[in-house]
């Protein structure tokens, strides 16, 4: 006899497990199907493990570069035990994934381990090592995520040709690495390994790094730092193929019409991720998939089959865990009969490079494209912030973009220490439609990095305290603060 549920969520990543918990909270009989890890890519081979390793790398970097100036004596060279680091990383992941499983059980969500495949719009089969089970449900939520894109000639073997998963699982220190793709995953892993002493070469097809992912001025700060830490960057370069070279690899790249060969111990390919819409027989039951491979959904994340929803990476951009979680909660509530739709102004993004980049809302180009012709843009550098100086992390700035007419905050872009932890205030400002004065007139505690947000808003209004700006009287036509 088939198992029967109100809601079956396929995929236990940050979209799926959140959806299943909320669904159970709403009183719906809920199951979740997972073929690999609880917590999905995010908790196991993505966000969380990469942050563990990046933290270790950052720590090492500070020990090597800041400790002696601060008066801390580290006798001899700081050793790196990659095997121990992997163990520690695993303990972090296991703790988080274990937490997910506990939460699901605590909310009476049935966990079905295995590979799901649709038989019809109301039935799936779940295949595991112990057999195949039939599962019937009134509603399905597809939260099957995405996987790294392979490029021709670079099939992942996770030995010499690594995906992000392999890049995060190195148990020995790499001498050298070629990173194909200067997006956020490649740069996060690449600069993390560079901190551990790996010679990293980044091969990027675009004219710049992080194109379309971050404010260009923010990227410049990161690019300078990469250069300083010895990372080579080849722009407008195409990876043509690779050969074995002794125990390592020789990667052929084409730059400006000329071929050159990069020798390294391994090659990491991070050119993006593709939605897992070609699995679970989604097409077989007639689910509409768009030309980019995303399951077609509406603002409620409902597919063309009304009782089937799709959330997270498999549904649409941006492929970010926090967007998937937001959708998961929303879809569970829609199934429970609540009126909901995806109506957010921004999905904040964070990039854990050095220094960190974070953004909420629009870039200058996006604001102009959206019809805001008259913008006010202000910046405040971390170099003028006491906390940043005391952290010895003064690279970077906070940049605020506002509508000149109304002073409404349209976007905030941060590059600098703890940018990832600072951006939430900006996200709230954008969602609330806050004006520059709202940020500037909110007392921010001293001495914190958060003061830079207040000062950047002041700078945008033309009168920050801790940087030299023109006298207030010199700005005719400035709207009254409470007009």
């Amino acid at each position, binding site marked *: 006899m088939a198992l029967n549920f109100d809601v079956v969520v396929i995929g236990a990543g940050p979209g799926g497990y959140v959806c299943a918990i909320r669904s159970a909270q709403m009183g719906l009989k809920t199951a979740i199907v997972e073929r690999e890890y609880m917590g999905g890519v995010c908790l196991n081979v993505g966000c969380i493990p990469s942050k563990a390793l990046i933290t270790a790398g950052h720590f090492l970097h500070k020990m090597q570069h800041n400790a002696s100036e601060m008066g801390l004596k580290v006798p001899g060279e700081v050793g790196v035990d990659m095997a121990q680091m992997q163990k520690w990383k695993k303990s972090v992941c296991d703790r988080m994934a274990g937490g997910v499983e506990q939460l699901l059980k605590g909310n009476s969500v049935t966990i079905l381990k295995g590979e799901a495949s649709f038989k*019809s*719009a*109301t039935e799936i089969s779940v295949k595991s090592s112990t057999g195949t089970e039939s599962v019937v449900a*009134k509603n399905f939520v597809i939260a099957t995520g995405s996987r790294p894109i392979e490029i021709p000639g670079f099939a992942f073997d996770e030995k010499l040709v690594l995906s992000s998963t392999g890049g995060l699982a190195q148990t020995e220190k790499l001498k050298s690495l070629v990173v194909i793709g200067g997006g956020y995953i490649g740069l996060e892993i690449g600069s993390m390994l560079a901190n551990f002493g790996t010679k990293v070469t980044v091969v990027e097809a675009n004219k710049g790094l992080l194109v379309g992912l971050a404010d260009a001025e923010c990227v410049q700060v990161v690019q300078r730092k990469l250069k300083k830490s010895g990372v080579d960057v080849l722009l407008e370069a195409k990876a043509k193929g690779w050969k074995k070279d002794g125990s390592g690899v020789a990667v052929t790249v084409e730059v400006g019409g000329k071929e050159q060969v990069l020798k390294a111990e391994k090659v990491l390919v991070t050119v993006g991720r593709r939605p897992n819409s070609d699995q679970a027989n989604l*097409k*077989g*039951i*007639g*689910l*509409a998939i768009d030309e980019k491979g995303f399951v*077609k*959904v*509406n*603002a*409620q994340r*409902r*597919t*063309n*089959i*009304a*009782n089937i929803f799709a959330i997270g990476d498999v549904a649409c951009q941006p492929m970010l865990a926090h967007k998937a979680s937001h959708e998961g909660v929303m879809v569970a509530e829609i199934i429970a009969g*609540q*009126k*909901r*739709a*995806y*109506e*957010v*102004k921004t999905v904040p993004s964070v990039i854990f490079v050095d220094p960190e980049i974070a953004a909420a809302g629009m870039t200058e180009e996006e604001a102009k494209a*959206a*019809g805001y012709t008259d913008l006010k843009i202000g910046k405040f550098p971390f170099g003028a912030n006491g906390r940043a100086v005391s952290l010895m992390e003064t690279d970077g700035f906070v940049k605020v973009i506002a*509508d000149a*007419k*109304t*002073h*409404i905050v349209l976007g905030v872009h941060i590059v600098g220490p703890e940018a990832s932890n600072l951006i939430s205030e900006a996200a709230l400002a954008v*969602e*609330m*439609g806050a*004006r520059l004065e709202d940020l500037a007139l909110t007392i921010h505690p001293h001495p914190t990095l958060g003061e830079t947000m207040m000062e950047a808003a002041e700078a945008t209004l033309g009168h920050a305290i801790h940087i030299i700006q023109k006298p207030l009287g010199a700005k005719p036509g400035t709207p009254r603060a409470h007009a």
Partner: protein
Amino acid sequence: MATKNVQLPELGEGVTEGELVKWLVKVGDQVKPDQAVAEMMTDKATVEVPSPFGGVVKEILKKEGDVVEVGMAMLSLETDASAGASAPAASAPKSASAPAQAPAAMMAAPATSAKAPASVAAASASGLDVVPPAMDAKVLATPATRRMAREMGVNLNQVRGTGLAGRVTREDVLTAQGGAGAVAAGSPMVAKASIPRPAYQGPAGAVEERVALKGIRKKIAENMQMAKHVVPHFTLMDEANVTALVAMREELKAAGEKAGTKITYLPFVMKALMATIREFPMFNASIDDAAQEIVYKKYFNLGFAADTPNGLLVPVIKHADQKTVLELSREIIDLAKRARDGKLALDEMKGATITITNIGSVGGQYATPIINHPEVAILGMYKIQEKPVIKRDASGAMSLDSIKTMNFTITADHRLIDGAVAANFLKAFITRIENPGVLMLDMM
């Protein structure tokens, strides 16, 4: 073999949901394309929901009494694409063309995606619309306000924000609520938010029953409250000697029966009203509060109040001025019957420029009706009575006579219509009613 869901299609402008009144099919039934499968009650009317395609009912997904949103799956049909033994051969070509015929809003999953990718794309483009649509990027409203608007079914993209820099406030959403309903689009939503919503708490232990205020009743409540809130009403009453009208109607009764319809007094009252509002155009007008303008309408659509089991409905006779007494009679009978049966189409209750209430057919000497906002006047007609009058002949001798009388009221929006104007209007109207022959002069 494939399973397709029948979704609740768009039921009309501004209608986002309905209450499922009755299933017309059950599990196992064979359904033909376009066959009505359920009756839904919206805030305006009861409508039948057709299935865009045929099949055998596999599962009923909603219960009677459930509130169903537009786009939600209502039932699933087992469609036999391969035309198995049980399917009649003739239905094969029909089902093949069904996706093309089906309105986009009622799309369903195609049996095979490989065959018709284009139709899938086309269908999902419109069929996946969320109602009301998601907020545009430029709209300023806090996340909490957005959620409230979504829960109330208010389209944020159409609300004019009154807050700083055009921010849509919580109050703006509350004001806009109800605006999407029966009140004509573009009509002013004046200060709706300031209408208090007091709670009622009965004495402890008292036997009471609570029923949700919903559907047609809720709409009536909202409309009446709105009209009384916005419009300063006044009512003028007078009596008409309808002896001649009664005689005339008696005379025409037989002719009406010959023409296959029953002639009541209502069409004559309508004719007299049409002729009088031509003379007094401000009775066929609206006030656009938002624009601060008076709108004079150059067309004459007559609403008449109909008592139905679900509550008051106002069917509308379009271009009543261009119709004969016979045509009006037929239309009145038809609309009234369908109003009682809950079968009126939504646009048959829209667009009246003035309304008549015939409460007198039930009882009461006089009433003070409520204007059907955004109209500015409502005419009341009451029961016919026989009354004694004193008659004086040429010599001055008095005698007692008997006449037939009928009471009329005109209720008007005092913002536009002054008391003296209404008195002149009622006088002109009653002159016509008392001398039905004069109606000939106005005949079109």
